[in-house]
């Protein structure tokens, strides 16, 4: 062998070895990071707060028994935060999956204890045989009477509960014109036409013609893993007006407005993304492209699709969250997907809003892409440093840790759709794990729009199969606490302890001309020569709905300038002489 060739062989070998060594060295370097430097930590406190809830999964038709754990895993576990009794303390509504099981409503008693009152309130018995199972809930004051009402969405019949204002609810599903059978994965309240009455948009997963408990056929699955469009049709329910008042009845108008998306929708969200004053709609679809519908003056929608950009992905969209992660004054979109080492390197998507209706996925470059099998995710300033962080739940099925289902699925997923569509041809899951035992990600923003997962360092250490995530200031200490609903697991409440030198400010909004819940309002805070915009959304986030509270972290020694509120009606309001560490209750002028 010549000397030159020997040199090449040595260099080549060194190159290959360094490739193998690089990930291990990187991991070793990060292991040495000290904790306690991030300005906050979590204390899991569900039990001590009086919350002992374990989510139960439904069983389905035995004909699809080979993939029952998978279907159960898609069936959500949700948490919704609302102040149902207007006492100023956020309450928690949790859904269950097993047919015959009860949903729970935990009333907040002064931030120290919670009391379960679902039966008494009339919102527990929702999972009766023949009506389907709950997959989530979202609350809003749809009739503008001053009390938050409750929409429970299901793989089954939707359920609408009107808040009576006395601690009880009345089921008004049929009077409202709702209640049709739909495999709803997510639903939001929004006022898409700015008439002051809240409307409902529901994202559907399975096609409504099937009954998962009594199947006529096993050909129920997606026809493609990348570009499938044979899922359930999404629905837009427009609330009708009666004179100047909201009638409390809804009309299904999704086809009329062109938003009856047939993808396998897992999450939906609405916010004004282009500054035109009307909420735009983002639909996150499994097995194929998401859809962004731009709202044209409330009269119709225009679907935005960019080649290799937004609306042209082949991923597994599972979440929608809006956040101004760069303090740019624009809302970007966070969508979770699947990343599994050796199988799928898709990554979550962070669609940075570049303005003028342009978006760019920056998730990998800013370090917010890999959170395993991601589910619900929410933006919020967890350490009150003035920059939005992300909490992302994850994990699919935690079964026998010595076995996994990825190989089985991967093998069959490469075939043609004639094989895929038939659930009977899918390999049996048995008790296998499938991206199980994953730890949630707490992506901490470094102030330059770059993220780093610090979950383990700050105490978010559970390995349950997380689904819905909601933020709320449960104990009114000026921090965002995190509530995580786990599929076939316990509801977790992470109380957040933040360095008190870091300040905050909060806004609770109440609409007058706009819908009473002020859903769709945007608040832009100016301080320390920077600004950040936040939106009060009416859902968004897979199976998780946060408290209707606008919370800004301010960092240490903040110099507050002013806040601008753009109400859903379009009215602008400016608040000055603001002080940190205060909650401002603001009514639309």
């Amino acid at each position, binding site marked *: 062998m010549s000397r030159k060739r020997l040199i*090449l062989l040595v260099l080549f070998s060194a190159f290959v070895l360094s*490739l193998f060594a690089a990930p291990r060295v990187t991991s070793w370097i990060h292991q040495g990071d000290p904790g306690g430097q991030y300005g906050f930590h979590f204390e899991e406190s569900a039990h001590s707060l009086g919350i002992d809830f374990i989510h139960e999964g439904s069983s389905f038709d035995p004909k699809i028994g080979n993939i029952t754990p998978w279907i159960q895993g898609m069936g959500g576990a949700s948490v919704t935060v609302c102040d149902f009794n207007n006492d100023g303390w956020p309450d928690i509504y949790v859904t269950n999956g097993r047919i015959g099981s009860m949903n729970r409503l935990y009333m907040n008693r002064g931030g120290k204890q919670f009391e379960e009152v679902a039966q008494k309130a009339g919102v527990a018995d929702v999972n009766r045989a023949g009506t389907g199972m709950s997959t989530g809930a979202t609350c809003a004051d749809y009739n503008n009477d001053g009390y938050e009402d409750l929409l429970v969405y299901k793989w089954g019949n939707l359920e609408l509960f009107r808040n009576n204002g006395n601690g009880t609810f009345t089921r008004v599903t049929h009077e409202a014109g709702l209640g049709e059978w739909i495999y709803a994965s997510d639903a939001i309240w929004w006022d898409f036409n700015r008439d002051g009455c809240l409307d409902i948009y529901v994202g559907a997963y399975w096609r409504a013609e099937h009954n998962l408990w009594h199947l006529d056929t096993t050909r129920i699955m997606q026809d493609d893993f990348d570009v499938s469009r044979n899922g359930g049709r999404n629905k837009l329910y427009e609330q009708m007006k009666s004179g100047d008042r909201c009638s409390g009845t809804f009309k299904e108008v999704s086809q009329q407005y062109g938003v009856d998306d047939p993808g396998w929708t897992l999450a939906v969200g609405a916010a004004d993304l282009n500054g035109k004053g009307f909420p735009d709609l983002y639909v996150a679809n499994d097995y194929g492209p998401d859809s962004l519908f731009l709202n044209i003056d409330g009269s119709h929608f225009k679907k935005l699709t960019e080649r290799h950009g937004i609306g042209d992905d082949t991923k597994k969209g599972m979440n929608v969250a809006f956040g101004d992660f760069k303090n740019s004054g624009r809302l970007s979109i966070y969508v979770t997907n699947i990343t599994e080492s*050796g199988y799928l390197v898709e990554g979550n998507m962070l669609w940075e809003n570049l303005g003028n209706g342009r978006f760019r996925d920056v998730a990998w470059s800013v370090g917010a892409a890999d959170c395993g099998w991601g589910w619900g995710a929410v933006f919020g300033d967890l350490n009150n440093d003035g920059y939005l962080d992300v909490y992302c739940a994850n994990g699919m099925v935690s079964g026998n840790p010595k076995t996994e289902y990825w190989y089985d699925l*991967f*093998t069959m997923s490469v075939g043609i759709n004639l094989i895929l569509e038939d659930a009977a041809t899918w390999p049996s899951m048995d008790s296998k794990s499938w991206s199980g035992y994953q730890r949630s990600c707490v992506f901490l923003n470094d102030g330059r729009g770059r993220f780093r997962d610090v979950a383990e360092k700050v105490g978010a250490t559970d390995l349950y199969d997380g689904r819905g995530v909601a933020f709320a200031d449960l104990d009114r200490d000026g921090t965002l606490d995190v509530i995580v609903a786990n599929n076939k697991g316990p509801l977790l409440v992470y109380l957040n302890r933040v360095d008190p030198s870091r300040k905050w400010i909060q806004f609770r909004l109440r609409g007058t001309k706009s819908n009473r819940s002020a859903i769709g309002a945007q608040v832009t805070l100016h301080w320390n020569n920077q600004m950040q915009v936040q939106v009060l959304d009416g859902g968004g986030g897979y199976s998780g709905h946060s408290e209707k509270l606008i919370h800004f972290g301010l960092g240490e020694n903040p110099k507050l300038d002013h806040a601008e509120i753009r109400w859903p009606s379009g009215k602008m309001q400016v608040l000055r002489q603001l002080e940190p560490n205060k909650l401002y209750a603001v009514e639309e002028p």
Partner: protein
Amino acid sequence: MEVRETLIDGLRHDPRYLVAGFLTLILIVGQAWLGFLESLEQFAIAVVFSMATEIALSRIYRREWPNPISSYMTGVSVGILVRSPYWWPYAVGSVLAISQKYAIQLRERHLFNPSNFGLCILLAAVPATVAALSKQWTNMPGVMLFIFLLGFVVISRLRRLDIVFTYVLGFILLSLVRSTITGVPILAELSPVSGPAFQLFIFFMITDPQTSPSTRRGRVSYAMAIAVIEALLRLARNQNAPFFALFVVSPIAVIWETLRDRSRNKT
């Protein structure tokens, strides 16, 4: 003038031009129809790094300007097969693919299929960053059929259909065996046959003339060996079984054939 003549001569007599042409056609149609590349930039990086590495190493070690067609095909294959959100795996995959041709040789013959080598090293070293092409080209039968027809035409011209048929037959038979052993539905085990990645593998990778035997008997044994190793890897639940099977079998085939030729020459 010399380059032009080389190209014209190559187009007439060198089957690699045909393969390259059809790969490019698949690429163009696939990109226009489905946009199946991760991105054009990443693809371009794979091709540029592949060709640049070939030129550099050829100048250093052979003191000649190489025919670019081989490195072009390697770059195209890496650009198609590697799936990563980053740009660097495309560059590294191409550099690995080409440089191993110069670093690992037996009697001036390289042992590994270049793009498969680059891919396998990336899959083994950085699985959190790189995945192989699998089903990202949709599950539509039309895509599979399109690649199948093109591949069939090319490999017929190359007279290497024996490899394709032997491997496919072996895969089907061994799928039945696997299904019996594991209890997985036979359609699920057979499913990869109907995927576009499988078509690319059988027509454009295992048939590589440089790293597959020259005799029919050798090729049949080679194809069956790939099918058997792949089946064993699948039983061990390795999701990249075809690529690693080729990684194992192709150097054995080259070494075996080289030693056999040497032995014949001696006698």
